């Protein structure tokens, strides 16, 4: 029960980055990642500069480096994939420490690693400085279909409730001496999953009743309106704009 506030990805602080309106941050991160992805992979220095830019943002937001680095672990499966690339890619090969590696594959691995890592780091910073609630408001402001935002907010609201139900079911199973050890026990687990679905669906129906009882007619009433001033937009877009400069240099040089 004692779950902390919001999610652990969010770091509460009062920094200039935290204070920016959510939709400006979302737009900035998206633009930044697009710029990064469009950078030629041979401009290695450009990626270094991007990393420096992100480090500046992290510093502004008072997010410690160790926090970002730990969250980067989410990337591991694809790092493994990237490591494979030099071995399997085609084309001209070079010998490194007695291993025959594909030049193209090495570039490919670098490309995936550099861009993927920068993308993850940018998203981690976004999540670390923006509360869930705000993210949803930001998505709404960025003209995502309202229905989609509603679905997302219900998912966030009930994610905890349902996972909690799942945990209680597991405790109930274990209290009766059941422990899933192998494929033989899948049937029992799947029954739990089925029961969880039924509970989720029925809860959805009850939530709908509760909403209708309070005058819901298919569209959410607007309760909070987030707005951003020109100055805030400028600050938020400083990151992708400087990245864009780097990217253009990367193409020119």
């Amino acid at each position, binding site marked *: 029960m*004692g*779950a*902390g506030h919001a999610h*652990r*990805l969010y770091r509460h602080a009062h920094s200039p980055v935290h204070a920016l309106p959510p939709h400006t941050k979302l737009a900035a991160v*998206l633009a930044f*990642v697009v710029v990064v*992805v469009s950078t030629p*992979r041979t401009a290695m220095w450009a990626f270094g500069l991007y990393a420096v830019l992100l480090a500046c943002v992290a510093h502004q937001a008072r997010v410690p480096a160790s926090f970002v680095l730990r*969250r980067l*672990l*989410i*990337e591991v*499966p694809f790092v*493994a*994939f990237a490591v494979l690339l030099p071995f*399997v*890619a*085609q084309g001209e090969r070079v010998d490194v420490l007695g291993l025959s590696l594909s030049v193209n*594959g090495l570039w*490919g691995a670098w*490309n995936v690693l550099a*861009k*993927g890592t*920068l993308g*993850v780091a*940018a*998203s*981690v910073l976004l*999540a670390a400085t923006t509360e869930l609630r705000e*993210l949803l408001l930001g998505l709404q402001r960025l003209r995502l279909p309202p*229905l*989609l935002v509603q679905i*997302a*907010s*219900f*998912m966030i*609201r*009930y994610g*905890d*409730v*349902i*996972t909690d139900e*799942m945990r209680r079911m597991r405790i109930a199973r274990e209290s009766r001496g059941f422990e*899933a*050890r192998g*494929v033989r026990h*899948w049937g029992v687990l*799947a*029954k739990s*999953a089925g029961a*969880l*679905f*039924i509970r*989720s*669906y029925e*809860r959805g*129906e009850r939530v*709908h009743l509760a*909403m209708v009882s309070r005058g819901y007619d298919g569209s959410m009433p607007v309760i909070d309106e987030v707005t951003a001033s020109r100055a805030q937009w400028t600050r938020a877009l400083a990151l992708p704009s400087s990245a864009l400069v780097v990217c253009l240099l990367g193409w020119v040089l």
Partner: protein
Amino acid sequence: MHVPDGFIDAPTSAVTGLVAAGALAVSLRGARRELDERTAPLAGLVAAFIFAVQMLNFPVAAGTSGHLLGGALAAILVGPCTGVLCVSVVLLMQGILFADGGLTALGVNITDMALVTTVVAYVVFRGLVKVLPRGRRSVTAAAFVAALLSVPAAAVAFTLLYAVGGTTDVAIGKVATAMIGVHVLIGLGEAAITALTVGAVIAVRPDLVYGARGLRQRLKLRVNGELVDAPASAPVPVAARTSRRALWITGLAASVVLAGFVSFYASADPDGLEKVAHDHGIDAKAEEHAAAGSPLADYGVRDVSDARLSGGLAGVIGVGATVAAGSGVFWAVRRRRTGAPSEAR
């Protein structure tokens, strides 16, 4: 299988982004048709369910475990449109909140994991339910095959995307072998879990299984001591009815193409498959969700784990599964042929 930034080049990402946006627009409308103004709460809760169930560990053997991807399950339980919507929302939130899957790769991820998986699963499922004898067991069997095929189908889609917009020149055959081989294995797990789960739901609340709506008994009225069919109160899902044949043919074609694809590579390059299954032990990750507090908090890196199955075994199972699926479809066709006249109304 969440694709990160930089894996697929910018133009392809943009195009898949458009595809994903289009698919979302269509499924938003479709979901509204399926659920009317209940869409938001119901789809939201189903998305939360998928999110939660992805954390349910299914132990494979000592120490390793896998989990559900959920696309096929969503399609069968709540219908293709709502299914696409729910899985997409889960992916969107994973991308934004957990940096799981790149933001520029959202289009790729949605196309691949929300659209292809769900649609293939639903088409195959619907097709099989139509041709198999009516009953719960058929629904479970259909769910198995649908989930089994949906995962390698996503792998095929990914391979195609990679062929078009991959940022590294890897022989496309190798990518295909790797992706499909591994995903046939993952598909087996997915299939078993999906089928069992659908079976569990259908045993208790058959009315909640969208894909099996046609199986409900007609209501009876007692008129002058005789039982009479009640006028159909709930309209039979129209789309499913009119496009039954189209659905069925597409499903068959998809299965055959898939089966062909997998067996081709499996037989032409068994070493490759073996190697990949081995290498992709990297895909494996043991994890611990256990009793941690918030699901959002202990969201970790996860993927299916299967390091234990050696390459050779993998190849055998892969081919075997494909053959089984293929013959299942074949058998189904035969059945349909023979059963057609009696079923025609």
